[in-house]
């Protein structure tokens, strides 16, 4: 078992379904920050059998919107002075901006360079979002 030292400050993203850790790493653009980041894959877990986990030693605020889309079951623990001071349970965001792409082949965003497309949550159960341009429903898929 690999040991990673206890986090003094920052964020622990826990209970990530095994295999989703790298998706979250990419979606949060963790490659672009200078702080210490640890991604652990396939950790044995009693509840989940296996899970992924990310530790970020940082003071920065990180936009967690995308997490709810990729894996709404993860928990986020905020750590200060070596102690967890806040735990956040995720929900699907009402509005997603600049993360998703419209899958309607007839949508103008497939043809023009539109960088930030807003999507509005329409069905929580199906994780369906409505494109602000063509109104087509799109479901967030991790490969995006």
């Amino acid at each position, binding site marked *: 078992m690999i040991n990673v030292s206890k986090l003094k400050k920052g964020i622990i993203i826990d209970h990530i379904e095994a295999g989703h850790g790298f998706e979250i790493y990419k979606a949060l653009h963790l490659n672009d920050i200078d702080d210490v980041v640890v991604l652990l894959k396939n950790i044995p877990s009693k509840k989940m059998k296996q899970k992924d986990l990310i530790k970020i030693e940082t003071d920065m605020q990180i936009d967690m919107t995308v997490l709810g889309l990729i894996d709404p079951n993860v928990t986020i623990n905020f750590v200060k002075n070596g102690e967890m001071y806040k735990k956040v349970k995720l929900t699907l965001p009402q509005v997603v901006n600049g993360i998703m792409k419209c899958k309607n082949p*007839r*949508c*103008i965003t497939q043809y023009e*360079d539109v960088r930030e497309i807003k999507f509005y949550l*329409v069905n929580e159960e199906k994780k369906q979002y*409505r494109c*602000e341009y*063509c109104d087509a*429903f799109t479901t967030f898929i991790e490969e995006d």
Partner: protein
Amino acid sequence: MLKGRHLIEPNDFSLDEIESIMQLADNIIANPEGYSMVCKGKLLASLFYEPSTRTRFSFEAAMLRLGGEIIGFDDPNNSSVSKGESLGDTIRTIECYSDIAVIRHPREGTARLVSKFAKNMPIINAGDGGHEHPTQTLTDLLTIRKFKGGYDNHVVGVCGDLLFGRTIHSLVKMLSRYQGVKFVFISPKELQMPENILNLLDDGIYKETTNLDEVIGDLDILYMSRVQRERFVSEEEYLRLKDYYVLDKKKMKSAKKDMIVMHPLPRVNEIATEVDDDPRAVYFTQAKYGMYVRMALIAKLLGVEDKNDKCI
């Protein structure tokens, strides 16, 4: 206040704002001469990236009848688009010359996108793929207002291509905002109303069927639509579905005496020409109202109608 606003989809305007357009259209119909110069000195950019006869002509006729002028194209190959210019750059350039712009484009969501680039020029969506066609909706509302006296409590049958029919999507979204309106969606299974429209409606206010004969007697308004060849990838599929419904004299016998038949036109085979003489067939009058309602819309968005105090 509609001055300076965009019309991308019918829900962009409140019911009161739509009513103000209808009232102005009524005034223009009653006294067209009184409005013949209200847009003098104003320029409308007519940007048609897709073929259109009546929508383009009705917009251009509307602007000319208000005393304004027109620039534009009806073939994108004759514009900078053929050089690879983005829509954003096209609109920002056109805004340097024009007071208002009308755009039709085959891609869904185009009008919403270009409206983000236009800072001081109202954008009117004249159809974006199979998505929306809000000025056809205004035309339809004016027609219903004229022939049925109002919008509330009608049973509206919508027949044909409900999947790709943008005029239908816009109309259903609009009419669902009025009291007591019920819909009967009549289409082949392959061309049923899309989920994103059905989701906007309460379960109790619509039903879906494939059989026009069974429901025609219940309708106050029958809105026919064309199966659009240009929306199909497969020619074989188009040929199979294009004559699925043909409204003829025999079917009209089962309809109410005061039911009206509407159609956004152009028609292919879905309404037999023998129906044209039936007083309930109002689609050509509907086309005429399209010009008047677009005159009212242009005047409102440009904020020019107040100059004509006598006529308001």
